[in-house]
């Protein structure tokens, strides 16, 4: 733990490479996703590293959300969705035989675009997963710890019994993060977590992500390039490729350290996108 922390600080000080000897948590190999006959993302190959924040950026419809949802098998929930290739999580093929999607999602949590708290009390929102997954010992402490980690504790500690629907959008989103943290996942996926929030709430979420990467591996899909530049260590740029028959598919154009992507991208398409000439 100490060693990793030091490495992050070194990386933050501008020494390269960011990845160093970090372990790849996810290895996506030739991943294509189809919705029915429609190819949504084509042949994505990417390694996502432990205790880093990896951002996925790109224009609308390029398959960013589709890709992040392959990482915890949320793609399974879309009727007619099919995946080819391999997504390995710590060496295990997530789509291999005998792998249970429910078990996968317990280890790889997710925060969604729109805050989606349950219509229950603040406390019950966080305790929900804990109770169902049998993590009942020290429930109060676990709830408090999760709320503290999500930087929400001080705002809600006196009204844990109130409905979560009475919180502001930014608070609701932090509650959703607390809910995800509570069940002690190893990875948290963020699918455009701040796109429905005001700038102050957005900045709170971003600060929080910096805190969280000490303990978790984070992947964030974002529309907002500044956000990617602010929070991410590594950035993947997804682009749209138009086939001769006019069908569109998402492809991974470039994946590198965030600073490289935003200052000196290797691919013309990345450069066009980040300089605003496209998208």
């Amino acid at each position, binding site marked *: 733990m100490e060693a990793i922390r030091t490495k992050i600080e070194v990386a933050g000080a501008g020494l390269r490479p960011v990845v160093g000897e970090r372990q790849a948590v996810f290895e996506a190999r030739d991943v294509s996703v189809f919705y029915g006959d429609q190819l949504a993302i084509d042949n994505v190959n990417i390694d996502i590293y432990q205790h880093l924040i990896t951002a996925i950026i790109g224009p609308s419809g390029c398959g960013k959300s589709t890709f992040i949802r392959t990482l915890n098998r*949320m793609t399974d929930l879309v009727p007619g969705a099919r995946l080819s290739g391999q997504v390995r999580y710590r060496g295990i093929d997530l789509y291999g035989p005998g792998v249970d999607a429910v078990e996968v*999602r*317990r280890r790889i949590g997710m925060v969604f675009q729109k805050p989606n708290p349950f219509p229950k009390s603040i406390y019950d929102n966080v305790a929900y997963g804990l109770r169902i997954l049998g993590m009942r010992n020290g429930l109060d402490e676990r709830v408090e710890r999760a709320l503290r980690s999500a930087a929400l504790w001080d705002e809600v500690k006196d009204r844990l019994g109130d409905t979560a629907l009475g919180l502001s959008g930014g608070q609701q989103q932090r509650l959703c993060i607390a809910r995800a943290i509570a069940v002690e996942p190893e990875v948290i996926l963020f699918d455009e977590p701040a796109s429905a929030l005001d700038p102050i709430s957005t900045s709170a979420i971003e600060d929080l992500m910096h805190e969280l990467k000490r303990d978790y591996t984070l992947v964030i899909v974002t529309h907002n390039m500044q956000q990617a530049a602010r929070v991410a260590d590594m950035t993947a740029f997804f682009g749209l490729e138009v086939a001769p028959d006019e069908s569109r598919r998402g492809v991974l154009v470039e994946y590198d350290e965030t600073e490289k992507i935003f200052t000196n991208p290797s691919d013309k398409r990345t450069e066009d996108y980040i300089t605003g000439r496209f998208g």
Partner: protein
Amino acid sequence: MAEPAFSLRTSDRLRRRQLVSRAMGAVAVGAALLAVAVLAIVVISVAHRGAGALNLDFFTQSQAQGFNPNGGGVLFAIVGSAVLVGIATLIALPLGVLVAIFISELAPPHLARIARMALDITNGIPTIVIGIFVFTMLMAIHGQQSAIAGSLALAIIMLPLVARATEEVLLLVPSSLREASLALGVSRWRTTLQVVVPSALGGILTGTTLAIARAAGETAPLLFLTSLGVSSHADANPFHPLQSLTLVIFTYFDVPALQTKAWAAAFVLMCFVLFTSLAAKLALARYRKKLGG
């Protein structure tokens, strides 16, 4: 200053449109008033005609045996109705909710369509047919009439109402809530039970109330399932044939001397239904308040 080339006064065309608009508005208000008036007339005339028989004895005494012109009270008819409808609800509510869960959460689209159609057809079966069916099936096995048999017939009537109403509200539960739960590593079934169904509780309650009102008002399927051969008029055992409010109305109305009591029983039945729906609304309001949503 020159006269403008256009006028902002009401033109003939506009006047005509306004007239049509006003007329249609009046028709709509009239239709609404008529609907309320029909209800009011029914309630008032039932209460008015039954008022003479509505006294304490009516509620506290059991029915008289045989053709006693006095008739007695409806205590056990109320109890019988409550038992009949209560047992029917205990059968139809969980079953209906499960069917709805199957249709909205689990079934592939073509199976869901078939199940939905089956429910609609069941809903369309004349209740007397359901009565005959249960009579033949159950009498053959059980050998005697009972309130349970009546409840079973009522449950068959209630099932499609509960299931369809529940299914419709389950579809309204945002999929983002399901996703939130599934993303925590909670299984589909637990998600349905702990997140989806509670969010849809209001609609389930409304659907159940409607079904209860419908079942409480049924007479046809009860006629030969629990009324013929009622040996005692002071009984609440569901394994025996029991009296019910609708049956009391049915039998009393034939006897001129007892018609006032039939009206009174009708009034009690209406109140029974009204209180059921009020209680459900109250329970719902309290539940919503707890959620603050």
